[in-house]
């Protein structure tokens, strides 16, 4: 259910970011809080009270947490809506709204017991009937067209076996089920009959540490403390109600505006700090700065293996060899981003395969040799290689303007320039509107397509490497090797972590080293910067996206 969909407007945002970056670097901005005394203030004992203003990049498209697929909106909605389980960094599920679970020997039946005494903001009780209602609705295509077709489609039935016990029966063994269930926010059964159930809002009640009080579209969301909250997950740093009385989430889509808002003290915390601004907060005693790599799959270029020159493995390998990614990424992101090597995030505790690191790239001589062998030996046209039919070695990348963030346009342009210089490849990066990109995607008429996604626990691997008809919704390489499906099926049908890891390792070596289906670029990360008096900020364990403000308090 994760779609990285930050809002932005290409031309304005790009120009704004560039100008802001220039002004920031020129030292036009002073940092009011950057004194040694503020930094020296010790964290001390958490204090209750106060209000916090959080500047976020993304305004949720819908405030209903079950229907919202934006990773970047989760930091906001997490304040109001709890899940059945929390997940530790090692991938273990811990009690939250659920008090425990058991799995039957056939691994198809999960019995989940629920915590007593939990209530939604609207006064409804949290119990087995509420959970069953939630799952039934998620599986109803009229309510949730995405969810009904996603990982929850593995659920055959869900029933209440008592007031506080729910039994899930799966269609087959599906090992990512617990993580999938843990990732589902729960809303009150009454919410489904509200007129604005799809748009979300204060009417859609959760059990979270904060109550959604008001929403001003395009401006802010206001959460107030839920005084009854007494069901924090084991992964939280305290129990009982939240420390803060009020959290105002302000939507500041422009990175330069977020940075300026924090520096001028108009907000306490921001997320999404551009690489060029990280230095303003890092090692600056007036601020805190933390960052974490995302889970799922890195930001990668997927070669179309069914269309154009990239159908030839020698061309795919040549593109990878023609580019020196370490140098480009360091230069574009001022050393603030982590280069990726594989089809799985290095953040994944089990499934990242280190064996593919340093196995390709930065070898122009090899790239040229491969292209010569592949027949791209005709006279150069404007510096680009041609073949015996006079065709230019052209690979078109359609970069969807809606998904461009974090200077990814600059990154691809740098690659474009380098592969022309080192190997005569015309890597044609075209930034296009959503409609044009989706049309090329649907028709398969692209050379490469870029993507990053965050679903953990191997769910993302299935999305990328199964055939489209079998659930490979983002199989951008159009890989159809039956072997890929076998590894994924084997990994999904066992709960033995070592066996699953072996399958996924084999898959990574195959798609990266054997077939060169993709060129992993860098691992997306989330960043949080805050004034030094804000304590308790963290990333959500395992999922590595900014955590709610439950543990946050304002001290000195």
């Amino acid at each position, binding site marked *: 259910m994760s779609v990285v969909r930050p809002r932005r407007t290409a031309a304005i945002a790009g120009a704004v970011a560039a100008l802001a970056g220039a002004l920031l670097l020129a030292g036009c901005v002073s940092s009011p809080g950057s004194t040694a005394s503020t930094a020296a203030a010790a964290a001390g004992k958490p204090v209750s009270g106060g209000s916090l203003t959080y500047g976020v990049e993304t305004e949720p498209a819908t405030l209903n947490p079950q229907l919202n697929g934006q990773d970047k909106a989760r930091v906001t909605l997490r304040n109001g809506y709890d899940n059945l389980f929390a997940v530790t960094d090692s991938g273990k599920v811990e009690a939250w709204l659920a008090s425990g679970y058991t799995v039957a020997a056939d691994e198809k039946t999960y019995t989940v017991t629920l915590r007593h005494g939990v209530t939604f903001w609207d006064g409804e009780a949290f119990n087995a009937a509420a959970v069953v209602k939630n799952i039934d609705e998620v599986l109803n295509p009229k309510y949730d*067209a995405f969810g009904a077709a996603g990982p929850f489609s593995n659920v055959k039935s869900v029933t209440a076996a008592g007031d506080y016990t729910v039994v899930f029966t799966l269609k087959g063994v599906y090992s990512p089920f617990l993580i999938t269930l843990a990732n589902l926010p729960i809303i009150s059964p009454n919410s489904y009959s509200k007129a604005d159930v799809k748009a979300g809002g204060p009417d859609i009640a959760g059990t979270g540490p904060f109550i959604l009080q008001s929403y001003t579209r395009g401006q802010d969301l206001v959460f107030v403390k839920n005084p009854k909250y007494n069901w924090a997950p084991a992964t939280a740093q305290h129990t009982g109600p939240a420390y803060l009385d009020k959290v105002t989430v302000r939507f500041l889509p422009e990175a330069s*505006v977020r940075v300026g808002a924090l520096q001028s003290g108009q907000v306490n915390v921001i997320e999404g700090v551009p690489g060029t601004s990280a230095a303003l907060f890092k090692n600056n005693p007036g601020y805190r700065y933390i960052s974490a790599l995302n889970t799922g799959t890195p930001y990668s270029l997927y070669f179309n293996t069914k269309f154009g020159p990239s159908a030839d493995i020698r061309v795919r390998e040549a593109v990878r060899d023609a580019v020196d990614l370490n140098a480009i990424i360091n230069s574009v992101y001022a050393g603030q981003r982590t280069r990726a090597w594989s089809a799985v995030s290095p953040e994944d505790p089990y499934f990242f395969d280190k064996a593919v690191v340093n196995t390709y790239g930065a070898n122009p001589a090899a790239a040229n040799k491969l292209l010569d062998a592949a027949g791209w030996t005709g006279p150069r046209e404007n510096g680009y290689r041609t073949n015996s039919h006079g065709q230019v070695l052209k690979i078109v990348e359609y970069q969807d303007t809606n998904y461009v963030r974090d200077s990814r346009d600059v990154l691809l342009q740098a690659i474009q320039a380098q592969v022309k210089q080192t190997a005569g490849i015309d890597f044609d990066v075209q930034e296009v509107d959503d409609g044009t990109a989706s049309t090329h995607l649907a028709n398969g008429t692209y050379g490469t397509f870029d993507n990053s996604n965050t679903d953990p626990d191997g769910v993302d691997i299935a999305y990328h490497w199964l055939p489209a008809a079998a659930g490979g919704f983002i199989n951008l390489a159009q890989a159809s090797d039956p072997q890929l499906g076998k590894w994924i099926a084997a990994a999904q049908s066992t709960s033995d972590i070592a066996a699953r890891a072996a399958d996924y390792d084999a898959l990574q070596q195959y798609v990266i080293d054997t077939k060169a289906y993709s060129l992993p670029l860098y691992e997306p990360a989330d960043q949080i910067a805050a004034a030094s008096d804000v304590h308790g900020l963290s990333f959500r364990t395992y999922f590595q996206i900014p955590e709610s403000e439950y543990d946050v308090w304002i001290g000195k």
Partner: protein
Amino acid sequence: MSTVEAEGAAAAAAAPDEGRRRGRLAVAQAVARRLIGALLVLWAAATAAFLAVYAAPGNTAYILLGTSERSPQAVAAVTAQWHLDRPLVTQYVDYVTGLLHGNFGTSYALNAPVAQVIFSQLGPSLQLALAGAVVAVGLALLSSVATAGRPWPSKIANAVEVVLVSLPEFWVAILLLFGISFRLGWFPIAGAYGFPSLVLPALALGLGICGMLSQLLRNGIELSLEEPYSLTARARGVSDLSLRLRHSVRHAALPVIHLTGYIVGGLLGGVVIVEQVFSRPGIGQTTLNAVNSKDLPVVLGVALLGSFAYVVISTIVDILAFLIDPRLRFANRRL
């Protein structure tokens, strides 16, 4: 035209009542014609917007689903949910029928009625546009009255205005943000939290238009100051300031009234950019997001609202001009 003018003048001179009656009739006819024209323009705008949006590339279902969830089942479900598979004509007829019933449809991306989405965003945008207009007109009056006919001040003001007209709004917005909000902290950085948060966006929006208006006004005032009636007024002992304010500005303002369409267009376009930079809620942000996510009902609603505003304002201006300036009634019956 000269015949009509002569006729009108003769009739007015010969029979004042008959002249007034004919004048009123001309006004009524012109107003009726203008109103019918306005309705036709609205219909044409709605149709053009519909066709443009329909012709834009891409499958709406794919866009709504994003890249992750593009399974055949999900595509089928979304297509069915929003009736995306109906033929163009059916969609058009439904759309126009809906409009006649005051139903603008439901936003795909926000899952809320379009009328609700737009009207909830109208207030902040109107505030901003009005404040921008006040800045533009106020500063233009100040600058033109103070500098017209004075060689050095007028040269300096002229240079500043040329710069203001040439600068894009987002650049002005960023300079204001960095200079005044980030550095000096005088005004809030973003949002619509009362008057202080309106100041910088209104300046960013109004300064460019102000540059153009003050050049026009200054030119008019300078011409007026050279007229014999100005000399007469001075001879009567009217002070320079009073002469400028009471007489010259009036004359100079006439061409400005006819530029109202340009000003409104500038304000509507500018609002989109200024709202984005200042993270203000409003129609501009809503429109950009709707265009990016191919949220057709919202795009159509905004296009219709924009043409409605434009048509209403230009109709009012035309009618006002017709009422204010008697020459128009006789000189140009076909308004």
